[in-house]
Structure formats: structure tokens, C-alpha cells
């Protein structure tokens, strides 16, 4: 099995990172482990700031594979996308971070949505002028949500408005 946690020269370091993440609610909590316990989101008690610099940092230094779902507090079509992504992650058997990024609310109002987002491992909230942050993520994105960025293990990005298709999920997680 071509698991990202079983091959490569940094396997030990990654395992240690996973162990650290499992006990650090402020960082990614790979849901392959936690979702198996069916309570991945229950441990989320904090919301991280997402400003104009965050996206670049995540793409450069963030986990791979990973999924980022940009959403709004009133986006009723967004939870279904988390369902789709969560199922794909569970089916893959890999611990893949799945982040929700709330664009319109912060703090407790952002956290209130955690239990609607299946398999979510981390919650961010926009901190700054929403269109400016959105344009850093994708200059052509018109605030339609869910807006999903699937980051493959190779670092290849797939940008999806709405729910990813089966072929996109396959390309993401192999």
C-alpha cells in the first residue's frame, strides 16, 4: 500500500508529527486516525486566523495530501462537500487533513459549524478584508462556496467549485 506514512526517508519524522498533531488541537489533526474514532471534530476548540499570508504558507509548508474547503456560515450546500471528502479520506485509509475555512464569521460562530463538517480536522476563519484574502487563494474565484482546493501528495492542486467528482478525488488521493 502506497501510504504516505509508510514510505520515504522521513517516515519516522512524519509519524512523530502525526503524534504531535493528535495531541495539539491548534495544529492539523489527521482525520484518518481521529475520524476512525468518529469524533474528529469534537476535539476542535480553537479557530485559527487565515489572513492574506496564510495560504502561501500552507501551500509551501502545509501537509500533503490535504483538502481545504472555503465556506461561509450561511453556505447550506457546504456540509455535503465535507461528507464527500470525508468518505474519500476514510476509503483511502490515509490520515488526510481536511480544513474548513470560514470566510464570514470568526470565533464561536465559526466553531459552531464544526459538527456540520464531517471529518474536519482544523477550522480557520478569515482575518482581514475577505475579497483580498480570496484573491490570494484564486484571483478568479467569485466567492462561490464551497470552494475546494485538493492538494495531492505531489503538491499538485485541484481547484473545485462545489463538490469534487470521483475522478478528482481519485487524482487527489490516488
Amino acid at each position, binding site marked *: 500500500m502506497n501510504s504516505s506514512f509508510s514510505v520515504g526517508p522521513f517516515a519516522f519524522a512524519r509519524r512523530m508529527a502525526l503524534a504531535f498533531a493528535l495531541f495539539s488541537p491548534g495544529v492539523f489533526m489527521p482525520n484518518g486516525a481521529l475520524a476512525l474514532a468518529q469524533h474528529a471534530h469534537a476535539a476542535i476548540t480553537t*479557530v485559527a486566523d487565515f489572513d492574506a499570508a496564510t495560504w502561501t504558507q500552507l501551500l509551501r509548508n502545509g501537509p500533503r495530501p490535504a483538502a481545504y474547503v472555503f465556506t*461561509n456560515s450561511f453556505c447550506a450546500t457546504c456540509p455535503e462537500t465535507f461528507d464527500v471528502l470525508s468518505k474519500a479520506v476514510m476509503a483511502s485509509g490515509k490520515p488526510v487533513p481536511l480544513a474548513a475555512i470560514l470566510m464570514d464569521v470568526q*470565533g464561536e460562530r*465559526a466553531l459552531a459549524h464544526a459538527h456540520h463538517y464531517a471529518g474536519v480536522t482544523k477550522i480557520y476563519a478569515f482575518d482581514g478584508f475577505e475579497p*483580498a484574502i480570496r484573491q490570494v487563494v484564486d484571483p478568479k474565484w*467569485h466567492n462561490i462556496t*464551497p470552494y475546494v482546493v485538493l492538494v495531492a501528495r505531489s503538491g499538485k492542486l485541484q481547484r473545485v467549485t462545489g463538490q469534487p467528482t470521483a475522478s478528482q478525488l481519485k487524482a487527489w488521493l490516488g
Partner: protein
Amino acid sequence: MLAVLSAVLRNALRGVMLTLCAASAIAQAVAPVPAASVGGHTNARHAPRAQLASGVAFAADGSLWMAGLNAQGDLFVQNAPAKNLSAWSAPRIVVSQGEAISADGENRPKLAFGPNGWVVITYTQPLAKPYTGAIRMLRSSDGGQTFSPPFTVHSDRQEITHRFESVAFDAQGVLHTLWVDKRDMELAPKQGKKSSYRGAAIYRNASRDGGASFGPDIKLTDHSCECCRIALANGPDGNLRAMWRHVFEPNVRDHGFAVVGGASPAEVVRASFDDWHIDACPHHGPGLAPAPDGGYHAVWFGIRKKGNEDIAAVRYARLQTDGSPLPESVRALPDERAEHADVLASGNQVAVVWRSVNSLESTLFAWLSKDGGRNFQLRPLSKVHGDNDHPRLAQSGERMVVVWRNAKEVQVHELKF
């Protein structure tokens, strides 16, 4: 070299902008207290995000009114006299006591003036459960000198979606409130975790006494989009018309149009044909204004397929009296970054305004027509740095203004054709 060129271009553009701004007769208003969000936030290092989304309207005496949130999350109103739209009164708090009020993007406080000194302010109150809300209203019967405490407009009191309200008086002075409502979706059978009901519904009610009492909740239509504003305009028969983002089968998020006050559910006329198939929330509702021939001017956002390419645009069209578009009139606004456009009209004068954001810089554009929407001229009106609201249009007879609030001030631009 690039930096020098960039600076030269920037200065040149600024010169053009200032000239055009002067030509458009800007009245820059005294700012109310900068607004900020209510509720908790996780990181004390940062100020809470501003909640700048506001409502504006002219009173019968020509004064301009505004309703919005202040830094404490309290709802305030202020007004400026017809002779000097830059002379805002001091903000007056009308709702405090910590009531949650949506004031972000298309979900914002609104004002409407009717006969007999009636004034109403509406907003969506987000409830504790996600995706739920109540439509709240304050009413005045003395021209806005005093307002009632807020009350819930709809008779349905379930903790479900009642959001994205719109409010207007029709030609007979009847107050109409419309909102996005999920009572039918809640009752529909589920397919797995997903409801079998497509989208949400639009419900409405009417008040013949300026909001003192209301008729029953009435369904306008099934299958609206869940999170876009509803546009209202007066029709030639004195009845209101509504335009909203609809979810046509199976998942086409184009626009519907209907008479407000007729049959329930109303006969829905399709008003746009982008054929945008998507299971997502655009958060981008339409704008609607009456034309003198009995038709309408409309603006909306949508994505059209051209081969394998997605063409996203805010588009303008003339609608016929029944709400169907005149195909030859459909055109994209001349700005790929246009967001949340709105439209007003008086005779053959048509104004389309929108915000165009490029990183932290936002430009307010007006697209003005003197021939009923056949030809338009593009005018940049202003530019601001940082957080700002969508531009809000208001009309008093032939007088049209666009109000643009940012974290430091409220700008009022009188539109000259």
C-alpha cells in the same frame, strides 16, 4: 524599472480618477462609528472583522437615511438632509442589548419608507443553530423619530432558516416582506443525509398598517437558492415584482421572476439563461429596476459555458413585462472583477453600480445610460483601501445616489448622467 512604471501608471490613474470623481459630484459624508463584528473571536491580537453592510433609503422629504451596525454591534440609524447629503446626523442607536444582527455582504439591515409616516427597518437575526435565523423588524409611525422594539415578522417560529429578507412598500402602501425560508425543505423526505427538496423556498407576508400587523406567511415559490438577496421593484400595475436566484431542475442556478401578491405559489418566469449547473452557493443575488415601458432592467451574476471554458460575469439585461429577458439586450458588465452590482432607473436614465476589488484596493464603478440601457458609459467614482461594504443605491424621484461605506467613512455619490 517595473516599479517605476507601476508608480507612473498608478499616479496617472489616480489623476483620472480624481477628475472623474469631481465630475460625479461626490458628497463625502461624515462617518459613523467604524463598525465591527459582534461575538467572540479567537485571537486577541486582531480586531474583530468589521460588519459594514448597511441599508440606505430616501424618505419622502428627500432626506437620505442609513441603517447599519456600530463598533459594538448595535443597530444605528442616521440621516442627511436633502440639501446636503454630506451632513449626516449623529448615529442614533435603535437596537442594542446584544441582539445578533447579520450585517455582512448581502445579508444586511434595510430601510423602507411608506405612507403615513411609516418607516421600517429589517434584518436577519442569526440564531444559535447554524443556518437558522429570524427576520426582525422595527417600525415607526412618526417618520423615523421613534422606533418600536424589534419583533419577528413571520408567524413560523421554528429554529430553521428564515434569512436574506427584502422589504418594500407597494404603490398602495402595503408593506411586503420576503425571505428565504426552509420550512418545506425541513419537511421533505431525506435521501441519505441530503434533503430531497431542491434549494429553499421564498415566503412572504403583507402588512396594511405599516408593520403593526401582518397577514399569514405565504409561499411565493419553491426552490430558490439558499443564500442570495431577493431583488424587488415596483411594477406598472402598482404591485411589486421579485427576482431571485432560483434552482431550476436539476441544479441550474439561474433567476426567477414573479409578481408579488398574486397566486401562491406564484407563476415563475425564468429571467436569466446562463444555464449554470452547480451545487454551490453563489452568495450573489440580482438587482432589478422598473423601465418606463413596463419592462425592467436587471443585473445578476452567473457562469456560462463557452466550450470547455467557464465565463463568469455580472450581466445586464432588459426584461420584458413578464420578466423574460430580451436576448439581444444581455451583456456582461465591462469589468471581470465586478461584484454585487445593483441597478436603478428613472425614465431613460439607468445606473448600474458595483464594487471591483483588486487585493486591498476597491473601486466603485458606475455604468450609466441615458437611452434606456442601449448604451452605457463607464465611470469610476471612488477608490478605497481596505474593508468596505458593497455599494448601495437609493432613489428619490429622478435623484439617484450610491452610498459606499468603508471602515473610516460613508461616501455618498450623486449620479449625474
